[in-house]
């Protein structure tokens, strides 16, 4: 299968590991990812204000580009996924907003673009994935979702915003022991890194405590789905190793 791929700014720079691992995992699973030709910044956050339609223009431009290439759009960055999805949703729900946004766009978005998270593609290929894994390590896995993929309710990827299970299901099917901890969708602190470092430290500390509580004596690694979470969890704790879920999968497939 061929999909259009929207990497977003972070995956091209500080999140390069994530990008590389996605591409390689896609390759072994026979998923063709073609990068969207003209992609723009998604604008990083979704800010819906009644009088400022420009705040979702970036996201909408990307969807228009996708429409031009007439395809489905795959992203992996949690923020991009969240922003694209919510922008598209309000574009189709709010007639007034649509009119205002259309005034800035060269063409209108005719129908909803299917926005897919890379994880959904993996879910479909779990059996193939299982057969590809060379070596399993003995670590238990704590799947940390963060906020962007689980909320808002109704349009997010993981519908259960408090105790989602889809990552867990995937990895337990691949034969891993799962740590079911309480704070898997709690905020990592996000950009407060710049403005209020202690708040982020506190958030990360709480998350780690929750994992510790659930893990007991098990050796444990944390899997993340989002470059922000990855950064904050890596930077503000050193008890557990933190990997992108694709990065982790790739290491299993490579067997190193």
């Amino acid at each position, binding site marked *: 299968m061929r999909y259009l791929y929207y990497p977003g700014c972070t995956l091209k720079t500080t999140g390069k590991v994530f990008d590389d691992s996605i591409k390689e995992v896609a390759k072994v699973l026979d998923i063709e990812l073609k990068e969207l030709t003209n992609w723009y910044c998604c604008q990083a956050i979704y800010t819906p204000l009644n009088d400022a339609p420009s705040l979702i223009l970036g996201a909408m431009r990307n969807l228009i580009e996708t429409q031009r290439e007439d395809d489905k759009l795959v992203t992996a960055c949690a923020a991009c996924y969240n922003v694209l999805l919510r922008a598209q949703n309000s574009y189709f729900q709010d007639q007034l907003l649509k009119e205002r946004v259309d005034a800035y766009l060269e063409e209108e978005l005719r129908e909803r673009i299917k926005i897919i998270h890379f994880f959904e593609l993996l879910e479909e290929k779990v059996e193939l994935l299982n057969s590809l894994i060379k070596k399993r390590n003995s670590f238990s896995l704590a799947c940390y979702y963060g906020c962007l993929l689980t909320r808002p*309710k109704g349009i997010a990827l993981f519908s*259960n915003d*408090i*105790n989602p299970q889809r990552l867990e299901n995937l990895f337990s099917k691949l034969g891993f022991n799962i740590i079911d901890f*309480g*704070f898997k969708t709690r905020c990592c602190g996000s950009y407060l890194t710049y403005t209020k470092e202690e708040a982020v430290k506190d958030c990360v500390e709480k998350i780690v*405590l*929750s994992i510790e*509580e659930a893990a007991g004596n098990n050796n444990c690694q944390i899997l993340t789905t989002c470059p922000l979470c990855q950064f904050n969890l890596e930077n503000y704790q050193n008890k557990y190793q933190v990997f992108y879920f694709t990065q982790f999968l790739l290491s299993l497939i490579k067997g190193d």
Partner: protein
Amino acid sequence: MAEIRIGVYVCHCGMNIAGVVDVKRVVDEIKKMKNVVVARDYVYMCSDPGQDLIKKDIKEYNLNRVVVASCSPRMHEPTFRNTIKEAGLNPYLLEMANIREQDSWVTEDKEEATKKAISLVRIAVLRASLLEELYEKEVTVIPRALVIGGGIAGIQAALDIANAGYEVYLVEKEPSIGGHMAQLEKTFPTLDCSACILTPKMVEVTQNKNIKLMTYCEVEEVSGFVGNFKVKIRQKARGVNPDLCTACGSCSIICPVYVPNEFDCGLAPRKAIYRPFPQAVPNVFTISFKDCVQCGLCEWNCENFAINLNDKDKIIEIDVGAIVVATGYEEFDPRLKPEFGYGRYKEVLTGLEFERILNASGPTFGEIKINGKVPKSIVFIHCVGSRDEQVGNPYCSRVCCMYIAKQAHLVKERLPDCKVTVFYIDVRAFGKGFEEFYTRVKDEGVIYRRGSPSEIYKRGDKLVVRSEDTILGEIIEEEADLVVLGTGLVPRKETLELAKKLKLSLSADNFLLEAHPKLRPVDSNIDGVYLCGCCQGPKDIPDSVAQAKGAASSVIALFNKRVVTVEPIQAYVREDYCSGCHICEGLCPYSALEFDSEKRVMRVNEALCRGCGVCPSACPSGAIVMRHYTDEQIEIQVGGLLWEE
């Protein structure tokens, strides 16, 4: 045909109508219409002087049609029909224009409202000129009632009807009557022992000769109308002959299958052949065939040969004159609020589960223990599943505030050293003696903190409840050994199915809808079907009992009348127009249309016709006429609405 003389009466309804609609202008406009002899406005048309005004005019002006423009005909049509009947007119010569609910209350612009009122009154006048006299028929009422649901409301209703000398079928889907009240320990605010006040009533049910108790039964199908309902009831296979069973219990002792006991909210096991609780009425055992492994041990062990493992469901048909629905409520499932960890942590219980823990005949015999240990601190949480739009229950469940206060009191009474903290949003102690009880509980040292907890998680072997104390404005993490969720009341899923069978309406919260929220709180939208207890909305025991008594007296009043009048709004066939094509025959949901093979025309069976009007709108030759809703009467209204102003 005599000259048509119409009197038009426009009601001010205080300021309700007159505040928006220019009543005088409506009267002036209507006076210009043909056939209108007199048109007046009055401040309250439904009051005695208002009605007298109509009666006087009928005499004085020799009126033969009356139009009242006021509130909805669903409200006061019977009143005004009576009025003109007293003045000697046929009640069906009345027409109402709804200028309150459908005009003055829903229109902002006064000019528009007045125009709409004129138009609505105009079509009422036009229709009135075509109205015909109709004569009501009387149908005898079967003096037997069906009560659905054997909780406290159903029991009370059944007893009241039976004590008035009428036969009652009391249908309960569980093996025993008693309902949720049988599960409770004490009742608030008087702290009566729930079982002690309920069980005598349950026994009374079995002793009353007028009550036919049908447990382990479900209503399958309902047809008919007020006074003459036909009901099919499914007697579920019980596996035990209740007449032979002596409740010795030897079957249950030997049964090898353990399953969670629903009566104990799954906190204790029961066998596949069981009695939900020792005071069960009827006091007989029941096999739950979904759990039974058909080993036959019980059959072999029963000395009275009461057990039949090949028992099958039976359908029983009964005829009744009235139905009381008392199907009760279900507890909210806190799994829908996963942040509270219910189902994940064993130490998180629902209100009803904790009630069983407190109960002397419950799984712990009344000792407050969790995981075998006595808790040192207990947290109660208000409004779980109530006042919450996230789970679609915006309403208040009305009992949680007080049952939490009661449970907190019982904890303090039995474990004085236990720290009891209650997280509330608002405490609603509105009933008789409630506020005094709430004050007493606070005085006993129960800590009330204002704030709705956001999550519960584990730290070591303690649960941590995270909340904001909105009064102090600080975040608190309260440690607890046991958390009790003040789970709200939600409508039963089975009731929704029953509502479909009975054609009952639901209110927005999915509880059953009463005919009028203030004035007809026990009537449903269907004549002859009455509501009581929590199926109509959350309520406490006294309210349920009061409503049950209300429903019972409505039934008794109906039975005392012996007859009901049936609206003569029915179809009839004009034989010379009918070609006998049978098109109508298949359309009628009541099979009221029969073919007269001699005259080769269709005929309406008046005992069956309910007057929906599906047949006249399908008749190709216009042979079928719907009384009171004839083609001409409707078409003249359509034309009237489209008059150029």
